[in-house]
């Protein structure tokens, strides 16, 4: 290891200064973040997911997610081409410890069987049914497209949990308020990516900013077929899935 160079950089503190200025500030007081400049989305490439569970672990550490609850999770599918409407699905502890090989005898066998992983998370819907039903305005979509929960205002009535078609909400067992993926709002407003994207080793998950003309999502969407989950619900979901199989629930 080159000790001199590293020591020099640490000493000059250039990196430290940059890091500090990154960590200070908020979306309104930070000099370089304006809600009007961003429209956040997520791009998930199913073909790249290896079910390692890094995203689930990273998210739970970054956001203090209580054990047994999930702001993001992975599902493993086993689909038989003769029976696409009934896939075998499992998600042991949300995939937080990866996926043990399936015990023999359980699951489908045959030439037409395929298996794959699907990462799931809050879809930060534009016409979100969860924000629609909140009786007090404790959950809402920000002007930059992120659906958040105001923990100081939430009553814990659980109506939003019922209204989410994707199962991405839960009630924090101690705080007794609704919780869900925040798209790592505390990170993206500072130019960082989400914890799950940071931890994903294959680039299956990528944060996207639809208002940024240079964002790779624009080219990707032009050249690939993408879908959202449960399109018939017309939620305006912004988690776009590439290579999503029809059997996915």
């Amino acid at each position, binding site marked *: 290891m080159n000790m001199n160079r590293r020591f020099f950089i640490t000493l000059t503190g250039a990196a430290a200064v940059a890091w500090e200025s*990154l960590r200070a500030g908020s979306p309104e007081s930070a000099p370089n973040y304006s809600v009007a400049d961003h429209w956040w989305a997520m791009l998930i490439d199913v073909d790249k997911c290896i079910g390692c569970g890094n995203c689930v672990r990273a998210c739970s550490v*970054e956001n203090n997610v209580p054990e047994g609850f999930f702001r993001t999770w992975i599902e493993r599918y086993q689909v038989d081409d003769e029976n696409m409407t009934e896939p075998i699905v499992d998600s042991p502890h949300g995939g937080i410890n990866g996926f043990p090989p399936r015990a023999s005898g359980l699951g489908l066998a045959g030439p037409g069987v395929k298996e794959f992983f699907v990462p799931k998370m809050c879809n930060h819907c534009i016409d979100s049914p969860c924000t629609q039903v909140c009786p007090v305005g404790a959950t809402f979509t920000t002007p930059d497209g992120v659906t958040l929960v105001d923990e100081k205002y939430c009553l814990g009535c659980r109506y939003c949990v019922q209204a989410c078609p994707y199962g991405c909400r839960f009630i924090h067992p101690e705080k007794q308020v609704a919780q869900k993926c925040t798209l790592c709002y505390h990170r993206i407003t500072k130019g960082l990516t989400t*914890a799950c994207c940071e931890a994903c*080793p294959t680039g299956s998950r990528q944060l996207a900013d639809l208002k940024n003309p240079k964002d790779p999502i624009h080219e990707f969407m032009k050249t690939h077929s993408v879908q959202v989950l449960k399109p018939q619900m017309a939620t305006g979901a912004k988690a776009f899935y590439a290579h999503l199989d029809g059997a996915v629930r």
Partner: protein
Amino acid sequence: MAGVFLVGVTIFLCFRAWFVPKSFGKYGHYRADSMTEMAALPIVHAGHETCEACHSDVLDVKKTGKHAGVNCEACHGPQAKHADDPGSGKPVLPDTSVLCARCHEANAAKPKWFPAVNTSEHSMGLPCNTCHKPHNPKIGDDAAAKGENK
């Protein structure tokens, strides 16, 4: 009865003016301050750009290999504390006999393009970094990246 109603409504409106948080309604039907509060939450993962600012030597080795797209904290875990105060202590290196299998253990659901092995057969119990250097795992490539002969 009408008097009761009027008094009730007046009391209610005064109460409301006092109780509803000031930032409510600024952007929509919610408390805008909560956006600020959410954005001020502590950061736990430093992000690879911060790591690379100091550890550019590792980046040089990594960027030409198969793990170029694997960010630092994907293996090393969250390191914002370390980035805040690098002198406070050396982060514990992950144990490769456990770490690598998380991604590379063979599983029927993994995509076909992804290199996966049955670790018990592949390494015969030895930790993976016996043969593979994690930053540039293809055997021989890391030495080439560093310009050394191994």
